[in-house]
């Protein structure tokens, strides 16, 4: 009577540590994807959101109180209009006159400030644009597109109205149709 012995080696599976590594990698990838998707679908800042701080380095000749850098924190207590624009943007031209006349209306009060943020633009063309439309309120480039990313803008023109406490109160996507429209948003914030 012969005893049968199994001499065939057992079939090797994937080592446990490799399986763990693969699962961790897959889950990590899914998390990164989820964060990216969530970020891309969040849309712009919404009214009621507190606006974080940012620094703007204005174009020469478009400074605020001759400061080389404007910090949002330093402007608390004022009603702010943050306008994103670009010289290549045709709809921006449609609202340039409205912004200019609204600024002319508020600029002497001292408690309202307009700030232009030039998005993905080249300086010579931007300066030409400002000169062409006689825009005089503080304006500067969005260096590194950091400010536009903070506001999560979807395009230009977009305008954000921030109250004295730094809370976003209104978002205008697209150009303004009249100076009255701008004043109708700012005046209630001054009361």
């Amino acid at each position: 009577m012969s005893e049968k012995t199994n001499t065939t080696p057992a079939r090797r599976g994937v080592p446990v540590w490799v399986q763990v590594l693969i699962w961790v990698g897959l889950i990590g990838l899914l998390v990164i994807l989820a964060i990216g998707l969530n970020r891309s679908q969040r849309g712009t800042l919404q009214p009621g959101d507190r606006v974080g701080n940012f620094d703007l380095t204005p174009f020469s000749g478009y400074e605020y109180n001759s400061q080389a850098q404007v910090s949002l924190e330093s402007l608390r207590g004022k009603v702010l209009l943050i306008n994103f624009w670009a010289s290549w943007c045709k709809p921006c031209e449609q609202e340039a006159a409205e912004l200019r006349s609204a600024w002319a209306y508020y600029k002497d009060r001292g408690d309202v400030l307009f700030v232009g943020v030039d998005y993905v633009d080249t300086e010579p063309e931007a300066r030409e644009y400002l000169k062409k439309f006689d825009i005089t309120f503080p304006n500067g480039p969005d260096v590194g597109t950091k400010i536009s990313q903070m506001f999560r803008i979807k395009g230009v023109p977009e305008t954000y109205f921030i109250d004295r406490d730094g809370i976003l109160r209104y978002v205008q996507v697209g150009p303004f149709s009249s100076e009255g429209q701008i004043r109708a948003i700012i005046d209630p914030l001054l009361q």
Partner: protein
Amino acid sequence: MSNGPFGGRTRLSSSVLLVLLLGIAVAVQMPQTVHAQEPTPSDDEVNRIAHQLYCPVCENTPLDVCPTEACRQWRALIRRQLAEGWSESRIQQYFVDQYGARVLAEPPRTGLNWLVYILPPLIILAGVVMLFRSLRAWTVPDSEETQKDAQEKPSASQADALSDTYVARLEDELKKRS
């Protein structure tokens, strides 16, 4: 009729001079061959750098072929910078500083960007390993199954023995009936 010993030569010289003057006058009046002037720097030089950049406004369109006004301005800026003697790396760095690293066609090899470079080869490698293992499993029979089959199936000698018994029984039955 001669004007002296050199009169004929003088007339000849005057004629030659006249012909030369006429020739020069005609040459000056003739239209010149004109070649199209390449702007300095050339479009090719500008596009070589622009091809490595993407304007954030026009996603997935390289700067060299993007038709928008924003991209046209960027190309004009590259041309100005090249004309001022900027190097390619300096121009790229300027665009990164001004508009962020996302303008680069090839993300910088820092931080999470490394995933872009590491993951695809890793995934391909894992796929190749899985494919190799699967193919091997399909072509080489499983040893356990082979052994089981071997146990279940009778050997050739056993089969012959069974067959002989069957034939013998069959013959017996035939004899009984006949």
